[in-house]
């Protein structure tokens, strides 16, 4: 797709989504905001894993880092009785910066690691998170987590829409920024360098790419995106707690990137939508079946987890390019009107 | 003398890329047959097709009464075929002893296997001192000996070798080719040899087959081929 069409599609999409917030009920707006928050993290992850070939299972921890940074900054500002846009923007920036710093540290280690090793380290990172929050309970308030003072919806919105609408706006704005920045990064020279490193580190190095530097930058940027997502989640829930950023959440993020189509920002969007919509749909389905409360409780959550896992396995085996790959294949087929045409397959 | 292995109209390739076209080949019993040809003639593909690593798209491969094109790779050794792969294919993480044992493992009879093991060590004396060395510690020549020794452990009727001279000193190549001649004379082994080193290969072989762009262009007694300067100029470039 050319740059101009992408721009038009993006702008139209953005306007449409913001328009959507006016018609949706508060619960749907909250879901929309959640999708946007996930999109921040998944977009960063899909760039890191799909474009640069670094598999991170630790993006939940990086998002958590963002959420806690948001919490500290927001609560600190609130104590100084700061209000207005500053109380919103400064904590988000702090979250992005904090996650980027943690990402830089992990990334420096990651630059020397390959595939499964990095996955193991980042997995350990996610499991270390609750240990840290409960060990330094006076700072992080343990498993309970922190309550956050957030910026309320602006006055001019009163009467027009609920808090959820404002949350959706903030989330959408963050997601749009993250996606635009990542897109430019992936399309440009740095994107080529990331792909070169992914495909063959030795060949990339011979071609003059600084492999370690590329990997570290990719990890740092990806972490910053995760931090933005964590900040939005913290803003929406008014809390930051380790339970919200568990291993399962990390796996869900990876799954969203994979099922959507790893390495593509559209794929990150489809994956994030699925992450919110599928559990919701399964929830309503089990409710409609009028099961006994005990059975319903067991199915709740578990069914979605199992389904996600099964889809992820299927996608890896049958359609490694995910939803976006299938869409593109379908579009190419329509364009070529039956004449056989090979699909450009990114590795 | 009857033919041990016969290929009739065999075509094969990699996916849509066809490499071999209607190959006719007969390997007589108790003889050495050398298949020669330039790079890209399809020599290695031919061996891979015989060993079942590539399935022919047409034609038949028969050995004795068996249709080899239906036999799985791992069952080839049970049908009397043993391959010495290209590039001295030994399992580098295993020791010399283990590599050799592995070669005879399919027969399962340990008394007979240890007898064969002793014979192989006798044949390749340098390996004896390195029994416990891992494959990656061997020199190129030792690796080639190990690969051949391991194939012999299987007590094959037909020994297939893929470019045994590749990367070896001429003296070692000569030794290995002489050994093949001895095995043919003493044990009645049948050998199918793929070589780029045409002169050496034809000097030891009984029959020569020239492969060019996936087709058999000549199949004659080796001495005759070696003497045919026209053919040499056209297909073998010297």
């Amino acid at each position: 797709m050319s740059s101009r069409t992408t721009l038009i599609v993006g702008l139209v999409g953005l306007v449409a989504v913001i328009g959507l917030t006016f018609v949706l009920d508060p619960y749907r707006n909250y879901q929309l905001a959640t999708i946007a928050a996930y999109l921040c993290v998944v977009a960063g992850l899909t760039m890191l894993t799909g474009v640069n070939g670094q598999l991170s299972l630790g993006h939940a921890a990086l998002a958590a880092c963002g959420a806690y940074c948001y919490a500290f900054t927001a609560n600190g500002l609130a104590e100084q009785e700061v209000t207005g846009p500053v109380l919103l923007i400064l904590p988000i920036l702090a979250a992005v910066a904090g996650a980027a710093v943690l990402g830089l540290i992990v990334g420096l280690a990651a630059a020397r690691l390959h595939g499964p090793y990095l996955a193991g380290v980042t997995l350990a990172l996610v499991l270390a998170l609750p240990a840290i929050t409960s060990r330094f309970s006076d700072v992080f308030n343990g498993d309970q987590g922190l309550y956050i003072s957030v910026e309320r919806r602006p006055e001019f919105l009163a009467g027009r829409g609920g808090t959820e609408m404002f949350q959706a706006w903030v989330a959408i704005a963050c997601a749009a920024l993250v996606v635009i920045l990542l897109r430019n990064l992936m399309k440009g020279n740095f994107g080529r360098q990331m792909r070169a490193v992914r495909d063959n580190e030795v060949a990339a190095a011979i071609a003059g790419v600084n492999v370690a530097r590329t990997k570290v930058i990719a990890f740092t940027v990806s972490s910053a995106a995760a931090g933005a997502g964590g900040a939005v989640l913290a803003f929406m829930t008014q809390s930051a707690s380790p339970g919200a950023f568990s291993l399962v959440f990390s796996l869900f993020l990876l799954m969203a990137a994979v099922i959507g189509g790893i390495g593509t920002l559209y794929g990150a969007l489809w994956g994030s939508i699925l992450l919110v919509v599928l559990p919701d749909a399964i929830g309503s389905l089990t409710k409609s079946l009028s099961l006994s409360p005990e059975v319903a409780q067991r199915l709740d959550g578990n069914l979605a987890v199992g389904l996600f896992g099964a889809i992820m396995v299927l996608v890896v085996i049958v359609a490694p390019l995910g939803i976006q790959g299938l869409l593109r294949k379908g579009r190419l087929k329509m364009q070529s009107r039956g004449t056989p045409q090979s699909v450009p397959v990114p590795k | 003398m009857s033919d041990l292995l016969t290929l009739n109209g065999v075509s094969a390739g990699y996916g849509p890329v066809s490499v071999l076209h209607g190959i006719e080949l007969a390997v007589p019993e108790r003889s050495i047959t050398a298949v020669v040809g330039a790079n890209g003639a399809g020599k290695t593909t031919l061996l891979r097709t015989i060993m079942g690593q590539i399935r022919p798209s047409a034609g038949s491969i028969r050995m004795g009464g068996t249709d080899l094109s239906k036999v799985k790779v791992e069952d080839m050794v049970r049908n009397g075929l043993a391959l010495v792969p290209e590039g001295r294919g030994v399992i580098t993480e295993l020791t010399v002893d283990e590599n050799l044992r592995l070669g005879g493992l399919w027969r399962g009879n340990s008394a007979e296997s240890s007898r064969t093991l002793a014979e192989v060590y006798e044949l390749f004396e340098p390996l004896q001192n390195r029994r416990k060395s891992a494959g990656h510690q061997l020199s190129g020549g030792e690796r080639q000996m190990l690969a051949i020794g391991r194939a012999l452990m299987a007590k094959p009727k037909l020994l297939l070798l893929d470019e045994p001279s590749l990367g070896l000193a001429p003296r070692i190549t000569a030794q290995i080719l002489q050994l093949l001649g001895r095995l043919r004379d003493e044990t009645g082994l049948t050998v199918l040899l793929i070589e780029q080193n045409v002169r050496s290969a034809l000097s030891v072989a009984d029959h020569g087959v020239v492969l060019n762009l996936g087709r058999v262009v000549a199949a004659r007694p080796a001495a005759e081929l070696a003497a045919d300067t026209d053919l040499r100029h056209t297909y073998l470039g010297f």
Partner: protein
Amino acid sequence: MELERFLFLTVDGLARGAVLAVFALSLVLIWRAARIINFSQGAIAMAATYLAFVVTSATGNYWLGLVAALLGGAAIGFVVERGVMRYVSSVNPLNSVIAALGVLLVIQAIIGMLFGNGYHPMQVPFSQSPLPWLAGLSISAYDLFVFACVGFVVIGLAVLFGKTNVGLRMRAAAFSPELARLLGVRSNRMITLGWMLASALSALAALLVVPTELGLNPHSTDAVFVYAFTIAVVGGLDSAPGAVVGGLVVGVLLSWVSGYLGATLSPVAVLVLLLAVLLIKPGGIFSVTKERTA
């Protein structure tokens, strides 16, 4: 008092480390057989432990449960390898990690649906109080049982891979599957066998460690997997002796950390150790020599 505590922590760490070593061995086995780090190993072991729980609860016999866990673990390993992992393209090594994570989610979800997400208490066959005739060492009968199991596994594996034909076939198939097939080894079968053996081992490890320390729930082996992964990396993923020594070392280290610095810090200590080893000696402390390339 100080010395007594130190001894207690050390022995406790050795016992825990021995179990983790068995789990790490299972990771090493699959790594060697298929060049895959099996991120679903913890879930497989957890499911097998549930099987032991069910059998032991029904029959009142611990040993039947143990056998069930071993057989069940092998069976799950078989299904995972033949049903999923075999079909994952190895072009990109991340694919197998992602597929294994998918398997992990599926297994955890199935167990959660069958048994709920709560904890189930499990019994052990021997007392956990220190034996009087080993005064001062604070070794319990259960510790001895654990050491015996681990010793049996280590010796069994050494014999299997060092002395038997099946072991030789498995190693050949692991190192060089195509070449092994040419030599008559049924490589696919050997790789499946490796998965079954590894899964049974991890089931044994989980069954030894879950009842006393973690309690049975669908996530009880998450941390065990990370510990075992760390051990396997510390020891070098290719090295079985490395996994055993690494297991004991990491077990003792963790025990000291949680004993002296606070129980919750173990996961952080593991993270630090893992990073340190990977950055200083990425091939593991016991990594073997590089292949001669000339």
